[in-house]
């Protein structure tokens, strides 16, 4: 497949404009056209979805848009992911697996979902458990799947305690489990959860996750 470079700035602005207006069909048209042009899936994820969701997040945090607009934009983005899934999941696996989850009381799941998809893009067998994952359920699932990496998503900075508890419980059950953490919360301040644990690290973006997987 001849994969081209990023979507152009013009395309991004058209997409973002439709996204913020809640126009799902226009967004889908743009994504379908990009797929038909064989634009690399990672470029669509990083330069279209991630970038637009970060921009939406910033507008919401600075009270320039309401939470309702943010919710609709998130739903539209999640819908676009489903357009890509037939292509994404048809790739062969490389015998590595990952489990990605949002910690308890974390309801922003789109970032975690996209991280799980990036694993899949690189041939990993990835499982996404969604938002507000109870720690006990997560630990049980890790026991069943024995993944190479566990990814934890944190969007709200004040929810650190849930992240700490999750890492503690996982490490108690599986001391050698490799854990990576990511999400918007890390842009708002340092989170010293990695101290005292081996194999726990922060991955700052989807692009950084890709570098880790190469």
């Amino acid at each position: 497949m001849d994969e081209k470079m990023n979507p152009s700035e013009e395309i991004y602005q058209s997409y973002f404009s439709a996204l913020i207006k809640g126009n799902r069909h226009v967004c889908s048209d743009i994504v379908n056209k990009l797929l038909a042009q064989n634009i690399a899936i990672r470029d669509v994820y990083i330069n279209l979805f991630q970038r637009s969701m970060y921009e939406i997040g910033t507008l919401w945090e600075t009270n320039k848009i309401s939470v309702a607009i943010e919710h609709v934009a998130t739903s539209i983005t999640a819908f676009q992911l489903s357009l890509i899934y037939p292509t994404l999941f048809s790739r062969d696996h490389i015998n590595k697996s990952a489990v990605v989850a949002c910690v308890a009381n974390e309801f922003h799941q789109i970032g975690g979902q996209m991280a799980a998809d990036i694993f899949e893009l690189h041939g990993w067998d990835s499982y996404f458990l969604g938002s507000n994952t109870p720690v006990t359920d997560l630990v049980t699932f890790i026991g069943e799947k024995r993944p190479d990496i566990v990814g934890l998503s944190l969007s709200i900075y004040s929810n650190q305690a849930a992240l700490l508890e999750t890492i503690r419980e996982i490490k108690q059950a599986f001391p050698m489990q490799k854990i990576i953490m990511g999400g918007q919360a890390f842009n708002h301040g340092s989170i010293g959860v990695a101290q005292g644990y081996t194999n726990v690290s922060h991955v700052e973006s989807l692009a950084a996750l890709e570098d880790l997987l190469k």
Partner: protein
Amino acid sequence: MENTPCCDFIFKSSVSVLAITFDASGSIIRANVFSEALCGRTLLGTNVSDLFVNFDENTDILSLLTAGENPLILNISTAHALPEALIFHCYACSSPNDHHILFGEYNTAEMENFRSQLISMNGELNIATRKLHKQHADLKRINEAMNNLMGMAAHDLRNPIALIMGYAQTMIDFMSDKFDKKQKLFLNSIFKASKLMNDIITDMLDVTVIESGTVKLRLEDAQIADVIGDAVETGAILADRKNVKLLYPPPSPIPSVSLDRSKIQQVMDNLISNAIKYSTAGTEINIQVAHVPDEGCVKISVSDAGLGIPADEIKNIFKPFVKLTPRPTANESSTGLGMAIVKKIVEAHRGKIWVESKLGSGTTVTFTLPTV
């Protein structure tokens, strides 16, 4: 109340509270921005009763509002044509005293719960969608691997089996004078068993080719009656051995059908040989073909007066390797793939196939082919 600064604010600003003043007849004389935006139209001069979704024609909305029994939960028709329930408070004005002022507000706790549930369900739907796509891809991979394995195994087995069959046949045909009765029996058994294995391998290869989507029909416009005639001629030899009669009355003129001659021949060979297998001596097998102009197709049926199939097993007839209760009447062997292949071929021709059967009375297999 209506002239207080608070009330004035509600009427003049775009605060999210519905505020309407109406007269004794219900005619709206004042409405705030929010109420008109919510209802999607100008409200001045319209009747307040018309704002509401009245589920019961006997309910007098105006009387209900002016009765003073606050709060009231009523549904209004919104700009999106969806009914919206608001909590209403209606008060009599001090002057003129036959006017009323109506306030409406959302039940914010209920709205918040609704929003929360919707977000939660949406999230779960996203996860379920992802899982479904992933499982679909996994199943597709497994199916392809199984098909490849079956194809490879069948190919590798073909040569040795052909060898066994060939040598057994040669010894039967040209060296039988060198063997005693028991040895000839052994040779025949070797030949029959190797032939069955060869048939199974051929069918397995057919299935893998069909399943992988690589089978290409060599379509030509043909007279179906001729193709069936050829199959009946071939089947007659087998039928004669078992004292079963094949009946194929000449059909009325039938338009051409676009078909792959060898594949439809394969279908007919399968259906006729099955009918013979499950028939007893002295019975008849009827083969019929007819044009059905209303349905734009040709209908071909093969009916036997044999053992029939139990009603609860008919649904399994097209499944590979499923053994049905009735067994061939002369212990003939079966690969278990014949009907599965027949169905695939018919469907590849955009036709349909079905079975009707009664235990003890016989079975009819019918399939259609679209006319050109």
